[in-house]
């Protein structure tokens, strides 16, 4: 009960702060962005520790995917926020002369951010940077499945950021439901489609716009590559992105690989070698591999392997360590396409390889499933690239690499269909939390009589010409030289 009272107070406070107007100023926004950078710099070790606790993430991985990436976003926002805030001119037709048109971004107001547990720092702070840059007040709810990160954010952030404008509220489903009862001006959600639906339904009651960052089965197409070194680079990138980013627990991790039959065994062999190079032999000592976040998810991933036909398709790994919640990097060759492992998002260190007679068939395989957040394709065939681009649909497409589009701030990051909607990163984060207000400024000079009733044929004729921007016709009409038709 006390919690509810606290929550109510926090909300009242952020609303009041927004109304007060200080978050609209560029100074406030910059101060907060600088504070985020300082927070990351001061607390790097604590963040590494929390990530180690929640997910067994190695500091290098933690820096690459969480601390570094957020610092980069904050720095970019800090450098660009003034430019982003400036109104954009809109071209106005001569007919409206004299007038001025512009689009002015304004903050939505009080926004809610739901972060997820797999990148508990960056998926909390990256959207927060967008919300702050756009001048909103924010309630951030980190995921309760990464409790160390959640409580660290809740305890440390308030001493860096304006505590009356930015609140971290911790909690599980009950608190999330409580938050969803409230009226927000925007909700930004990262998580699963299933919870995404709940969030969207709740938002519907208040007509709140939402951004949904969901996941999906992101395929990697591996075409025949001429050089063996290219093949090695490709496989290394695939392996790095499958197991090297939170052990496959990433919304843009490779979910499965599509490859021509003749290359399947080459791929498996290369993957095995690379796994060994990356992680060694000892499953009990996988320091470089994140653990599975919870017992629940551990069981979920393990269950994917239990189907006997699926189990029979394992060509590497498959062992699990329940005590440490780790699952060995596991490769499966041609599990049945209707098995759960091929219908559900895997979100774990299992990598099915689907072999095809012809690599072109991969387009069909992809299109027979919901639209993924990302598609990856290793190919040097330009025609095939074009085909992938035009015949499939996904949040993004990356050629000859995996996951790196995430750090490319000039590209919008977001899904389509089952993988969500709305986008962020860089300027898109600012846009995601801004209302683009259209402004037309007119003067009292020059009145077009034809705008006003009583209507007559002259006015009709005038407007016909005006709408086709036939200025010569207009002049002739005024001079009485143009015949009024109709």
């Amino acid at each position: 009960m006390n919690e509810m009272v606290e929550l109510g107070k926090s909300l009242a406070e952020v609303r009041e702060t927004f109304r007060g107007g200080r978050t609209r100023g560029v100074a406030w926004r910059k101060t907060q962005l600088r504070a985020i950078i300082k927070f990351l710099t001061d607390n790097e070790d604590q963040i590494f520790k929390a990530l180690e606790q929640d997910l067994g993430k190695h500091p290098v991985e933690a820096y690459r995917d969480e601390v570094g990436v957020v610092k980069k976003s904050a720095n970019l926002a800090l450098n660009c926020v003034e430019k982003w805030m400036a109104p954009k001119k809109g071209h106005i037709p001569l007919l409206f002369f004299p007038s001025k048109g512009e689009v002015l971004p304004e903050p939505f107001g009080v926004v809610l951010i739901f972060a997820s547990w797999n990148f508990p720092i960056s998926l909390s702070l990256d959207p927060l940077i967008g919300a702050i840059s756009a001048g909103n007040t924010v309630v951030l709810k980190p995921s309760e499945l990464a409790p160390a990160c959640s409580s660290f954010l809740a305890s440390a952030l308030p001493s860096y950021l304006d505590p009356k404008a930015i609140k971290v509220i911790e909690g599980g489903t009950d608190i999330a439901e409580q938050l969803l009862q409230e009226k927000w001006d925007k909700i930004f959600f990262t998580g699963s489609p299933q919870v995404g639906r709940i969030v969207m339904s709740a938002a519907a009651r208040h007509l709140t716009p939402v951004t949904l960052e969901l996941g999906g089965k992101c395929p990697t197409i591996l075409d025949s590559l001429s050089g063996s070194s290219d093949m090695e680079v490709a496989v290394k990138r695939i392996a790095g992105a499958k197991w090297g980013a939170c052990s496959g627990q990433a919304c843009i991790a490779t979910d499965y690989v599509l490859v021509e039959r003749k290359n399947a065994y080459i791929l498996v062999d290369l993957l095995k070698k690379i796994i060994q190079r990356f992680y060694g032999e000892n499953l009990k000592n996988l320091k470089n591999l994140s653990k599975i976040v919870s017992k629940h998810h551990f069981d979920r991933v393990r269950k994917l392997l239990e189907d006997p036909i699926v189990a029979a398709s394992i060509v590497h790994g498959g062992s699990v360590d329940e005590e440490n919640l780790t699952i060995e990097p596991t490769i499966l060759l041609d599990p049945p396409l209707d098995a759960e492992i091929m219908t559900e998002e895997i979100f774990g260190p299992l990598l099915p390889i689907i072999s095809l007679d012809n690599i072109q068939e991969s387009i069909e395989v992809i299109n027979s499933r919901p639209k993924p957040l990302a598609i990856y394709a290793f190919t040097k065939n330009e025609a095939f690239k074009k085909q992938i681009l035009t015949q499939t649909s996904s949040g993004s497409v990356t050629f000859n690499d995996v996951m790196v589009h995430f750090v490319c701030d000039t590209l919008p990051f977001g899904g389509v269909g089952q993988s969500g909607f709305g986008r962020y990163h860089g300027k898109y984060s600012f846009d995601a939390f801004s209302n683009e207000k259209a402004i037309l400024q007119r003067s009292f000079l020059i009145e077009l009589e034809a705008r006003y009733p009583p209507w007559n044929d002259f006015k009709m004729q005038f407007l016909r010409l005006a709408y086709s921007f036939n200025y010569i016709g207009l002049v002739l009409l005024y001079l009485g030289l143009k015949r009024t038709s109709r």
Partner: protein
Amino acid sequence: MELEYGKKEVFDAETASAMMKELRDAFGNGKTKSFEWRVSQLESLLKIANNHEKEIIDALCSDLSKPELESFVHEIALMKSSCKLALQELKHWMTPQKVKTPITTFPSSAEIVSEPLGVVLVISAWNYPFLLSLEPVIGAITAGNAVVLKPSEVAPATSSLLAKFLGEYMDSSAVKVVEGAVPETSVLLEQKWDKIFYTGNGRVGRIVAAAAAKHLTPLVLELGGKSPVVVDSDVNLMVAARRIIVGKWGCNNGQACIAPDYIITTKDYVPKLVDALKLELEKFYGMDPLNSEDLSRIVNSNHFARLKKLLDDDKVSGKIVHGGQMDEGILKIAPTILLDVPEDSLIMNEEIFGPLLPILTVDKVEASFGMINSRDKPLAAYLFSNKKKLKEEFVKTVSAGGLAVNDTSLHVAVSTLPFGGVGESGMGAYHGKFSFDAFSHKKAVLYRSFAGDAPARYPPYTPAKLRFLKALLNGDILGIIRALFGW
């Protein structure tokens, strides 16, 4: 090819799923994505407007007694210029947009590709039944989607005209019209769409949003709200009055989502403003406005009764300073001005959507912005003033979908400005390129080469890799070199 649902009298779940299958097939085979298809469909829409102007004007006259000039200017001409703009710009809009890539992903190149969302639903409104149906359809087609249009049953003549002509002129495998009311709309909303574009009110908007949530369908909601007009005392009074009148009564007799809903002005200035409005109203619509052919009627008896109720409110009686005449037989209500109605009256607590215009007064004009911001965010807000500071303050502090200074409603016709609401007035925007964007997915595409493979990305992780990554993500070139050489 005549399909079942074309003949059946009821549009039920079965017919709907047959229709969806046909549309999915049409989209799936890729024809709607081609530049040529989009152009041909836009040209067909133009042909409908060009070949059937008379029928369109007649339908609008039958549904709303809309004056011919209004029908032409606000519905046909606007729709045509949208079509022409789309035809002219389509190539340009479809071209992928190149973007820079950071050093972090070097060597690489990147672009943003606009791709159609798939099969989309447009539910339109009765007040501008032609324009508000086809303007979103233009966006949907321009972006390469298959589209179903559900025109409003409250404007039946236009609805059946759209069904007929779109059926005749458009590619019927990918562009369809479903006519009907609540039951048909409910069946449509149960289907899985890739985008829903709804124009109407907040109550139905919530129903649409809840239905969309089930399928994770993105939405554009074009709603309304009480759009205020603030009038300062230093303005060209005649021009201001005329611009207010044409935005209020000259736009479907107030039945427009961006029509001025109420005026706020100062106590000192209000007598002059009321006089000017009266004078210009008389010039425009004569002494007997109920019989003026230049005013639309109220759409139906439900809405007539709703508006009558607003005036019957005890708190409002005696506040009418102009107009007030009504004729239920011809569903006409004269331009009506009310002065100083209480803020808790019915008329000040719902969108009026009709020819009634309350005026509220304040001591100082500056106080009006606070009044506006204390209410739900409107679709539009207007200010008449010559003071630079006041204009700046207005633009900065008043939150609304769109603002116009020293005019009303005209911002809608500017295709370079996004048109859409915020908060209670909706979400998402359209018009011009914004319509194309509303129906497109912006696909991020990154091209990498096989070269430039930084070992630091891969395990096993070492402190040197951490140093390198720090430099790389900070875009610190010297740092990168230092880390590479192990300094």
